[in-house]
């Protein structure tokens, strides 16, 4: 396959990028800000000379910028290598700091960063409650409340689901956890930069985020640790990150994440208005024009950028490769795309009917998407769905009825 390129900042000639929950383009301003730290300004922030010291100042500036986006204090922010590391560090620390308690509460629809860790912890003889969701992808708060006991060491519930965009009431759950003496951690990788966040007014103890979901590069993340929350480092090494995470800082990417956080704060209103309007127009058009289409998950309680739909009687990978031929990037929860043989654990947990669980399509937007790109997908997606339906041995009568 020849290399496909998007022009800087995502406005694209060859690629129409609707896969921003997978990763986002690095913002041009972010790239500009980080580049000197990959060339001339290569000093180590820990060094005892001005050349390194100036770099340390920029790392602290990045910490302040990210803290501002979170509504947190700079000393509550620890830079890590990615969202997965942050999740692992948070949950492991919470267990370490709540000794004697061997119960974990989480949900069935978490990202593998949390789910796979919880399965490992079961092997380490922790007990895990995986809370179910309803057909809309929502949690039953009464069930959450019942699940948390005085045996519970940590409650880990994602803020927004990466596949459907559905939001969980993390603030209410954080309070329930606190009442029982459990730590509350949230995987907020999909939320930070898309929704306002004010941790000063919150009861969340630990929060994980990832740089490349908000227009910073891959390979940098952060963990928020509320002041006063005891913490055991996950990566053991030097005194970096105020002794909370060993290892020489990924300086350029940390600076990039700081800049990306500043830009996200400045563009927050656009996510709620223009991006959301694009998403709504895209989703409404798909459901109107493509045969057998329906939305997955709650329409109200969700991220402004994410649309998950499913099509009856067809398979998601085939949709993705036809879209890819047209330069459109999207993703699917179908079994065939993942290498597993089962469709997405999220859609299965929601009980999406088997007639459409294999034909899911996730389109996730960013502020770099345009009206023209939405028009392009709306023009080309329904014929793809129709073509695959014509190939399908099932649902032919309904298709004939869908003019």
């Amino acid at each position: 396959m020849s290399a496909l390129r998007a022009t800087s900042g995502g406005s694209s000639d060859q690629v129409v990028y609707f896969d921003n929950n997978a990763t986002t383009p690095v913002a041009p301003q972010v790239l500009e800000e980080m580049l000197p730290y990959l060339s001339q300004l290569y000093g180590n922030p820990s060094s005892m000379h001005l050349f390194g010291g100036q770099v340390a100042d920029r790392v602290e500036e990045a910490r302040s910028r990210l803290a501002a986006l979170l509504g947190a204090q700079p000393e509550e922010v620890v830079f890590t290598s990615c969202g997965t590391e942050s999740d692992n560090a948070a949950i492991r620390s919470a267990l370490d700091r709540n000794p004697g308690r061997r119960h974990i509460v989480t949900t069935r629809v978490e990202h593998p960063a949390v789910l796979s860790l919880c399965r490992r912890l079961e092997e380490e003889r922790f007990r895990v409650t995986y809370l179910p969701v309803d057909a809309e992808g929502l949690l039953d708060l009464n069930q959450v409340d019942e699940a948390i006991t005085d045996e519970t060491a940590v409650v880990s519930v994602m803020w927004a689901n990466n596949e459907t965009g559905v939001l969980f009431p993390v603030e209410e759950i954080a309070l329930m956890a606190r009442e029982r003496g459990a730590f509350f951690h949230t995987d907020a990788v999909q939320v930070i930069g898309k929704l306002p966040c004010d941790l000063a007014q919150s009861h969340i103890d630990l929060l994980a985020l990832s740089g490349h979901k908000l227009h910073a590069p891959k390979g940098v993340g952060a963990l928020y640790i509320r002041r006063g929350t005891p913490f055991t480092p996950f990566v053991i090494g030097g005194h970096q990150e105020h002794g909370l995470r060993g290892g020489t800082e990924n300086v350029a990417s940390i600076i990039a994440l700081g800049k990306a956080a500043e830009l996200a704060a400045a563009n927050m209103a656009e996510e709620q208005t223009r991006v959301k309007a694009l998403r709504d127009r895209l989703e409404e058009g798909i459901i109107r024009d493509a045969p057998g289409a329906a939305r997955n998950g709650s329409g109200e309680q969700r991220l402004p950028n994410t649309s998950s739909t499913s099509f009856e009687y067809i398979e998601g990978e085939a949709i993705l490769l036809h879209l890819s031929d047209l330069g459109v990037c999207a993703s699917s929860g179908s079994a065939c795309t993942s290498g597993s043989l089962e469709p997405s654990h999220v859609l299965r947990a929601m009980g999406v009917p088997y007639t459409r669980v294999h034909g899911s399509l996730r389109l996730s937007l960013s502020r770099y998407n345009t009206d023209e790109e939405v028009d392009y997908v709306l023009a080309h997606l329904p014929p793809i769905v129709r073509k695959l339906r014509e190939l399908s041995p099932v649902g032919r009568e309904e298709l004939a009825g869908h003019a």
Partner: protein
Amino acid sequence: MWKYSDAVMDHFRNPHHMGELPDANAVGEAGGLQCGDWLKIMLKIEDDRIADARYQTMGCTAAIASGSALTDLTIGKTVDEAARLTNKDIVDYLNGLPDQKLHCSVMGAEALEAALANYRGEASAGPAEDRVVCKCFGVTEGQIRKAIRENHLTTLEEVTNYTKAGGGCGHCWPEIEGILREMTPALREAKREAAVQPKRLTTREKVHLIEEVMERDIRPALKADGGDIEFVDLDGDTVLVSLRGHCVQCPVSGVTLTGFVERKLRDLVSESLSVEEVEA
């Protein structure tokens, strides 16, 4: 992202013989909606020969391509010849499938088997008479044994790739491993026999086999890309061929010759063969 061969992508983009065949007299299906892939093949059989075929599938790229390849491979064959097709023929025709997608080719072979059983008026050996081993995907012991036998499988992972069995909850893993343990010595024996006694072919037999492989396994694949090939002569162990159609200007025809044509001939006729292009 999966690494699909160009042949798979061509069949996916422009599937051959898709749709319904109203006057079909043999219909077979494999897979199911619940499993996420389903393939249905319809054959029109006249005088014991498959005159036409159509297929429908609810499935991924590999399932769409496997169905397309299956119809290409069956049209023109007698019922007996078609009955000898296995999933390996589909995989070869598509220049390979990713490991995790091999089950799509098995689904194609199963649908064909069901269609031929339907033509003969037999009830296909469905799950009713065969014990289900993998409950997640409804895979029977018979299906697992057949895949192991035909593809010389030796590991659980391979069985999952070919049949999907064991790809869900994992409760059937010990049972699949038991079947593998039981079948492996016999397989090893079969493999060794095949290795110890490479049949000495006369030149006449060799030419005959080369012609057969050309017609059955090589020309249809090249034709699918708008090319063609002619077998000119056999000089010792060198097969002289001349390229036709798109292959003539194709910049990668050298790769086709050694990577595909020569590999096929070595696999199916004799290990010692090499291919050389001559001017037409």
